[in-house]
């Protein structure tokens, strides 16, 4: 490259207008290093990252971390206040609160990741298809998104989860994922449309690339940053949604430990044993805060211009 720049065989004759506005060379720094630099450059993002790592490790190593069974009742030790054996006390069925919070991380993460992945995949396909085909496909998909977004997300999820109540955590995943499709589809569509405006798409079309090829080799790779960011940011929202459904009693069903359900169960004993209800909520906040900050960091590191978009 450099050799070539020094001694061109046929120097391109410049035009008067752009002759001395040669673009300065972009700084040659590795993308990853730049990513890491921005991402770990702000304390909040770093804190979020650490929280996420801790929660994931907790979820994986739950059985190692605690000697108790999260679902087994022990009626001899009901409603204990914090003590040496039960650091956060026990619930009305004698189960160790801390154990249930630790195992609850598993449930939250599994549901969070699955629901976000599901809605991302469906939403992305819908969004790309809308942007790609335009016309009536665009109109139909956007109207579907409008309709799904016309109901408050929690109401939509309540409808689905409530009508299928008692179907296990995959019903909850289905409900939460369903609620996340519309925003994802809208965002992907907007992004793909703006990428489509670029000259390189025109160029691809000019050399005779097929529509689908343009879609997957040109548009998608250039529209994916918001997808990554949406994925990370989405998890916090989904975890909150899951907690909400479980709190209302139509999410994860007993005896599976779920933070939202624990808050609900504990509310009855609020006056005598406040930690029962309050500690699982703290866990929810930590997880959501962690993922939100990681999402913010990823966004700033990948493309700060997305700030307004997501």
């Amino acid at each position, binding site marked *: 490259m450099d050799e070539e720049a020094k001694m061109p065989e046929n120097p391109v004759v410049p035009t008067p207008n752009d002759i001395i506005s040669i673009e300065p060379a972009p700084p040659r720094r590795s993308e990853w290093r730049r990513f890491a630099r921005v991402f770990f450059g702000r304390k*909040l993002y770093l804190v979020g990252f650490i929280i996420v790592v801790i929660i994931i490790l907790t979820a994986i190593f739950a059985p190692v971390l605690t000697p108790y069974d999260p679902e087994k009742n022990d009626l001899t030790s009901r409603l204990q206040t914090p003590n040496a054996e039960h650091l956060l006390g026990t619930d009305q069925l004698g189960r160790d609160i801390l154990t249930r919070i630790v195992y609850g991380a598993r449930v939250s993460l599994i549901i969070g990741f699955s629901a976000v992945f599901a809605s991302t995949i469906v939403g992305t396909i819908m969004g790309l298809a809308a942007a790609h085909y335009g016309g009536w496909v665009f109109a139909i998909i956007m*109207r579907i998104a*409008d*309709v*799904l977004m*016309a*109901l*408050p*997300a*929690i*109401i939509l999820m*309540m*409808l*689905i989860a*409530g*009508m*299928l*109540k008692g179907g296990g955590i995959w019903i909850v995943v289905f409900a939460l994922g369903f609620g996340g499709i519309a925003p994802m589809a809208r965002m992907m569509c907007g992004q793909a449309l703006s990428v489509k405006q670029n000259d390189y798409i025109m160029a691809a079309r000019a050399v005779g690339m097929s529509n689908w090829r343009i879609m997957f080799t040109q548009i998608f790779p250039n529209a994916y940053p918001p997808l990554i960011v949406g994925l990370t940011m989405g998890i*916090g929202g989904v975890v*909150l949604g899951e*907690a*909400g459904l479980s*709190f*209302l*009693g*139509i999410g994860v069903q007993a005896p599976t430990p779920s933070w*939202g359900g624990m*808050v*609900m169960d504990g*509310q009855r004993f*609020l*006056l005598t044993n*406040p930690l029962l*209800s*309050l500690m699982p*909520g703290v866990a*929810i*906040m930590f997880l*959501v*805060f962690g993922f*939100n*900050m990681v999402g913010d960091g990823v966004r700033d590191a990948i493309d700060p211009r997305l*700030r*307004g978009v997501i």
Partner: protein
Amino acid sequence: MTAYIIRRIIIGFMILILVTILVFLLVRLLPGDPVMRYMANFTGTGQQNVMTPEQHDAMMVKLGLDRPIPVQYWDWISKVFRGDLGESLGVQQPISKLIADVLPRTAYIGFWMFVVGTFGGLLVGIYCALRRGTWLDNTLTTIANIGMTVPVFWLGILLIYLFSYKLGWFPMYGWVNPWDDFWKSCTYVVLPIASVALGGIAGMARLTRSCMLEVMRTDYVRTAWAKGLRERVIVVRHQLKNAMIPVVTSLGGTLAMILGGSVFIETVFSIPGMGLMMTTAIFDYDYQVVQASALIFGGIVIFSNLAVDIAWGWLDPRIRYG
């Protein structure tokens, strides 16, 4: 502008129709037989075969569930537009009467949640943007970041614990209609409103701050500085209106979020409003009530989005003359 408004109204109406279809299909097409599920729940046995097949069929016919889905939908929707939302299986009353009781309560607390959340968030966001980088900005921004993560129901419980139980300032839960006894009702609504409004303030403050910062970097604000205007004039005349465009556009979403939050808060504080009615109906498999309340929620959101679109046109000349 008139053409724009008319177009928005037509679109809003279309979406409302589509929402009725969505709600109807979600309730009808999800697996399960409404009568059986309702009865199983009603008797509390959990067994679905408490009725004889004849009784079951009779009830299906009585509720019109034996007919094809499109006919059922037409039946329902034509009644809805005449103001008849059907009858609750649980309390054996017309749903429109139930809603007339509960909706004003949700509307009342929802209104205050919206007002406090929006204006509080705007003030905090504008302040932070103008004093960006100061310790107060950093603190408020961090609080807002945390505020976005707090589950509404948890905050409600925490507030009950602190302010009702420990300090004894407010009643723990319950409801008094403000039109019956205004001062007494105030003590009941403060905590519910605060629980939801805090999240609203956090979200709105974050959005306002980033929109203000975005606008501050624009070329036209630099032009305004180059004119020698004072900072206050630049902020009020040149920045606010532009920054408000995305903020106003988000208000529909804010309202939806607040309605969602009120569902939880009504459960936490035992407020007999729309949310509690819908939650109870879901538990009872009272599908008519579920359908009707989902529709009401959707209608409110669509209507407020329409208002937002009109406000947007009023703010942004590119829309007004577009």
